């Protein structure tokens, strides 16, 4: 669907919402308000005086009798008699809410996309070949006041020392902004709305947009989470004079050797967030007593985790099942908060002397002994104190946040959340994370404003929750207040809603929106059935229609076709974890463990012609071989697309560089220097010959393997492909395609193995891919209960670095590549981050460490300066290095960069015919009309209300 608003950008920037959509099948609704620019409306007089831009349109030449005074086709909307330009559209699902504090899906952000405004917005530039940032609810760009704030005030928000730029920003507000009832919107509205957004008693799914994304308002998380118990390092709370814990906590102490605590930073000057208590204990060797104490602590933790924690539902169950003695336990397996009192309640054994190992089990441990040992360690490791209570320093506790975080007073005179009113039309943001002005503007393309009196009036206290019916179908139009170019005027929950021009919107009279927002109403119906929507569109009663793969055969060449690109890359994610695969396979002759073989996976990847996959099974997606598609920007100001940078382009070569040609790279006479041939980028990672070699090599290695459950001759490789909807035609086509390609390449590899004598002529190996419906497949995948799935991650187009979290962050919960899950800390990769052409000593780090570094670089220097260029190149180098590193594991095998195709009626015209990153085709702001409602009715009548033939060309 075509209507796109800035809201989409807000979605992308603030939430970076990832979607693991069931490929092809389970997608959300058809409307995608995400991805481009603003709302429309024409100023009453403007719209009236604006000529219908029919001349340029093919459609306009077909107008039979424009100007007919018949009732408009859109009169189904009910109130279009006085409306000139009505946009008729549809949603296939019903939004459950459109409250900006709680919305989760794109359908739920659909209404606010018309009725609300961000501080800033992106719109098509004058040339219509790019975008520009404009102020909307802000009157001007943000002003960096970081170095103008008094130290005393800074301290209230947790800053210390001289504050660098990019932390404190003033946002001047638009003085003309008002609610649809005419009430002015002032700084108080923003402050009070944010207070409700972060209200710890409320269920607001968008609250994390202000503390978990790139926009991190100081103390926002602490405020939002107060009243909750949070496991925190006690180091921050121990009074170094009295030794008491200055926090409201339950008196229990917890030990977790795998967590970072600021205590370790007091021991190691170079400690970062990946340094844990384990590092301290492991390196505590200053004396025998200290070494013994440290070992005993580790023994106790290992023993407890092994014997007393239930791992039956753990993702690491297999690893724990293999443990036969304490010394088999690895530190990284023990990421548990253990209540130290447990050492009194359970029979935990440790070594008694240094000469023993943990397996000696010679001494029963206790909480007191743990405290004594920790005290010894802390004293030995030159912690901050030698006091008897210093055992508390490395521990954790459940801290209650009830009274810790106040909101602060209106003027920000007391410590509080980092959003304060400077005057009636200026707010100040104190950020916990440094931001550039540009990033902040992007982050503020959305808003958190709600009409607080109405919002409060609609609150419901149910059980332990406080929730509001503001902006819900239940409260209806009366339970919502607009402040954007349009307002909600009528609705029948679940059936339709009407949005009309908001005459009170400042944009109609400020002279800055001339020629924008031409339409004066939007009539949206809920039409769940795709075919019904199609018929409505062909009868001229809808102005856009989302095409599916079948429709593409008929309308794929239509002049009215538009393609909307998404940030999602659809991939196959393989389970490469051998123990888990072994557990899943019924026998070696019904094999799954082959997926643990990298060469085999690589061969399958090379065996898929992604160009054919895209054209045969999708409605507009394009073949793709990387993780981050063309939408991702690494330089927002200039629109620099990551994929167009030298580093972005180099990734293909880093993965497929030597996989062209048709010589077997595993043959004894293969000479890489002379035989290796680059694989054409046009082939999109497809080379059947090479696929055969790699699959054959993988099979050979596995046939000769000594691993339990390895593949045997005459085995069938039985792969279960978990999909959201196995009945969807698209999914069926995709699976049929993949299954056929896998079969082809395995058959070819088997022939090769027979020729090589690895398999006898009577022996065979086949592969079968079976679809398994699993609506919760991503949760199944994160527990390893799958062979392969479609994983489809996407995120903020301006933050490709952030998206790498899903592949590289060691504690990311939903990693789809189970074989790599949790290993990001242990698997190292060399990246030429400084671009000097060599791998320096400090350029070999774990994926997780590279990821952390990548996201810690802030480009605050002047753009184009040497320092800026160095940082920028470093970002690109690390990003491309990580991307290639993940791809080279062949656990995540990209297939297509997702796109949706839709078709527009002849009535409307997009702002541009070329898709432009971040603004799409210009959105509602730039949309123009070729026909008025009356003219459109006449046009339809002249074609007997059937435009089906017209849309084919």
């Amino acid at each position, binding site marked *: 669907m075509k209507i796109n608003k800035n809201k989409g950008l807000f979605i992308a920037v603030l*939430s*970076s*919402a*990832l979607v693991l959509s069931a490929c092809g099948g389970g997608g959300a609704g058809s409307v995608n308000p995400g991805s481009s620019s603003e709302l429309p409306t024409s100023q009453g007089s403007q719209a009236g005086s604006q000529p219908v831009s029919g001349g340029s349109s093919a459609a306009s030449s077909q107008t039979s009798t424009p100007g007919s005074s018949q009732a408009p086709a859109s009169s*189904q*909307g*009910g109130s279009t008699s006085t409306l000139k330009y009505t946009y008729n559209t549809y949603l296939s699902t*019903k939004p*459950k*809410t459109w*409250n900006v504090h*709680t919305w*989760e899906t794109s359908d739920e952000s659909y209404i606010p996309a018309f009725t609300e405004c961000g501080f800033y917005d992106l719109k098509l530039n004058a040339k219509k070949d790019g975008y520009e940032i404009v102020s909307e609810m802000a009157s001007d760009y943000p002003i960096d006041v970081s170095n103008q704030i008094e130290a005393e005030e800074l301290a209230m928000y947790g800053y210390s020392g001289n504050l660098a730029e990019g932390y404190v920003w003033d946002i001047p507000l638009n003085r003309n902004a008002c609610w649809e009832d005419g009430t002015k919107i002032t700084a108080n509205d923003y402050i009070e709305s944010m207070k409700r957004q972060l209200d710890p008693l409320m*269920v607001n*799914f968008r*609250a*994390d*947009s202000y*503390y*978990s994304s*790139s926009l991190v308002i100081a103390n926002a998380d602490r405020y939002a*989470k107060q009243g*909750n*118990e949070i496991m925190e390092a006690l180091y921050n709370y121990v009074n170094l004079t009295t030794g008491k814990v200055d926090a409201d906590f339950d008196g229990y102490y917890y030990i977790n050797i795998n967590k970072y605590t600021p205590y370790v930073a007091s021991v190691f000057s170079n400690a970062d967030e990946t340094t844990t208590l384990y590092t301290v204990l492991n390196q505590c060797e200053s004396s025998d007593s200290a070494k013994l104490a440290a070992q005993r602590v580790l023994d106790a933790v290992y023993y407890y985790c092994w014997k007393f924690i239930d791992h039956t539902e753990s993702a690491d169950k297999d690893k724990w099942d293999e443990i036969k003695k304490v010394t088999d336990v690895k530190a990284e397996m023990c990421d*548990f908060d253990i209540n130290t009192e447990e050492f009194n309640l359970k029979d935990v054994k440790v070594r008694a002397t240094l000469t023993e190992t943990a397996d000696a089990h010679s001494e029963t441990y206790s909480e007191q002994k743990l405290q004594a040992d920790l005290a010894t360690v802390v004293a030995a490791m030159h912690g901050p104190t030698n006091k008897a209570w210093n055992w508390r320093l490395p521990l954790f506790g459940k801290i209650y946040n009830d009274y810790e975080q106040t909101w602060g007073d209106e003027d920000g005179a007391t410590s509080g959340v980092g959003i304060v009113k400077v005057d009636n039309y200026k707010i100040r943001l104190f950020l916990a994370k440094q931001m550039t002005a540009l990033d902040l503007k992007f982050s503020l393309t959305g808003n958190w404003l709600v009409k607080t009196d109405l919002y409060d009036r609609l609150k*419901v*206290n*149910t*059980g*332990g*929750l406080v*929730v*509001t*019916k503001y902006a*819900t*179908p*239940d409260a209806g139009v009366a339970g919502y207040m607009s402040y954007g170019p349009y307002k909600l005027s009528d609705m*029948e*929950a*679940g*059936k339709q809603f009407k949005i009309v021009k908001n005459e009170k919107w400042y944009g109609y009279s400020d002279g800055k929106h001339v020629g924008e927002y031409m339409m004066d109403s939007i009539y949206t*119906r809920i*039409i*769940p*059935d795709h*075919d*019904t929507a199609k*018929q*409505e569109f*062909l009868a001229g009663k809808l102005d856009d229609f989302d095409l599916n793969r079948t429709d593409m055969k008929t309308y794929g060449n239509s002049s009215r076709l538009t393609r909307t690109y998404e940030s999602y890359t659809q991939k196959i994610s393989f389970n490469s974890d051998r123990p888990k695969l072994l557990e899943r396979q019924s026998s070696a002759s019904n094999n799954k463990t082959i997926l643990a073989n990298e060469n085999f996976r690589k061969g399958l990847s090379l065996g898929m012609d992604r160009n054919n996959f895209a054209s045969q099974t999708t409605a507009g997606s394009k073949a793709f071989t990387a993780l981050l598609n063309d939408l991702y920007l690494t330089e927002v100001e200039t629109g620099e697309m990551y994929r167009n940078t030298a580093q972005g382009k180099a990734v293909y070569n880093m993965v497929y560089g030597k996989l062209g040609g048709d010589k077997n790279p595993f043959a004894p006479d293969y000479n890489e220097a002379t035989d290796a041939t680059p694989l054409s980028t046009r082939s999109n990672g497809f080379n059947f010959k090479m696929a055969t070699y790699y699959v054959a090599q993988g099979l050979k290695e596995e046939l000769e393997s000594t691993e339990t459950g390895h593949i045997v001759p005459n085995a069938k490789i039985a792969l279960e492909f978990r999909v959201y909807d196995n009945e969807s035609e698209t999914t069926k086509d995709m699976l049929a395609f993949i299954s056929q390609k896998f079969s082809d390449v395995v058959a070819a590899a088997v022939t090769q193995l027979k020729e090589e004598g690895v398999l006898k002529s009577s022996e065979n190996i086949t592969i079968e891919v079976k679809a398994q419906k699993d609506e*919760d497949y*991503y*949760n199944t995948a994160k527990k390893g209960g799958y062979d392969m799935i479609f994983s489809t991650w996407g*995120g903020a187009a301006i933050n490709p670095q*952030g*998206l790498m*979290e899903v592949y590289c962050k060691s504690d990311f*919960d*939903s990693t789809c590549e189970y074989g790599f899950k949790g290993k990001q800390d242990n698997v190292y990769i060399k990246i030429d981050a400084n671009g000097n052409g060599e791998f320096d000593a400090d350029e070999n780090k774990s994926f997780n460490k590279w990821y952390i570094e990548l996201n810690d670089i802030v480009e605050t220097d002047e753009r184009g300066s040497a320092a800026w260029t160095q940082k920028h190149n470093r970002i690109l180098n690390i990003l491309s290095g990580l991307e290639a590193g993940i791809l080279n594991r062949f656990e995540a095998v990209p297939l297509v960069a997702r796109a949706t195709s839709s078709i527009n009626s002849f009535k409307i015209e997009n702002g541009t015919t070329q898709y432009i990153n971040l603004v799409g085709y210009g959105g509602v702001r730039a949309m123009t009309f070729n026909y008025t409602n009356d003219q459109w009715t006449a046009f339809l009548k002249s074609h007997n*209300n059937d435009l089906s033939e017209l849309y084919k060309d």
Partner: protein
Amino acid sequence: MRNGKETLNYILKRLVLMIFTFLVIFVISFILIRLLPLDAATGVGKDPDTFYNMQVALGRMVKANDGTYHKTPVFEQLGAFIKQLFAPNTYKTTDGVVHTTSRWGYSWNISWLSAPDKLLVKQLPPTIIINIYSIIVSVPIGLALGTFMALEKNKWPDNVLSVLIMVLISVPSFVYAFLLQYFFAYVLKILPPLRADFDGNWFSLDMFKSMILPVVSMSFGSIAGYARYTRAELTEVLTSDFMLLARTKGLSRAQATIRHAFRNSLVPIFPMILGEILSILSGSIIIENIFAVNGVGGLFLQSIQMKDYDVFQFVSMFYIAIGLVGGLVVDVSYGLVDPRIRMGGGKA
């Protein structure tokens, strides 16, 4: 119904059984839906704690000492749910206003914070109206067709209609729905393809016209069913000995058919009609989707798919109650229609 007391006893016994059945199904439904996994949506920069804390506050999950979330034991949830059904459901805010909360909980996934009963009631009118129109259309036509076919048994009109009826029974209703919509709305353009917007009057001309296609789509199957049953029953009755007696007593064919045969043939058909009347509260998912009716058709399935526990519980219990009451009413109606049928008589 020879004995009123016997019948009353039978009804009471059935009522007790019905309540017991209702409770068993209530518990089973509750347990099954709550056994489905609960997982927060995940994503870059997302804080799943908001979701999990919400589940904790709703009593569906508990937070363990190690910070992980686990589902509350299902029987504990059941206890809390039953308590909520009977506990006071009002509270007073600091401004003195008394608020009432929903005893059946709230929808969190289909329609944020809508009480399940209100959600159902809000979507019932179009479903009920379409079903009533359908009954009004299908019952007389079905009976008339069946009677005609019985009277014309084995003649060409009967054969033609029998074939047609078999087609109507065999083809799923959504096929008619698509065809009817396509021809009457998009080709002939004489009827609206979708249900009209509600403008405050469910019985306006526009609304009526817009319901014609879904009503006809839903009626085809019913018409065929009634016609087939009526034909079969009436054919059997018409060949009965008492019909011969009636004719020999001097009744005309029409008199004998209407006064004796038709009434007797209604014995199995009347409960069928009654059952249909009771089912006016349930909608067809596919028909409602095709014509954008926005009725209750998809509510039940949606509540399962979206794990909207409270909506599922209320909607399933609502329909189960109707089903149970309907079963009882139909059974009792046999006795009303045909006094020869004895209720709860036990052994003869």
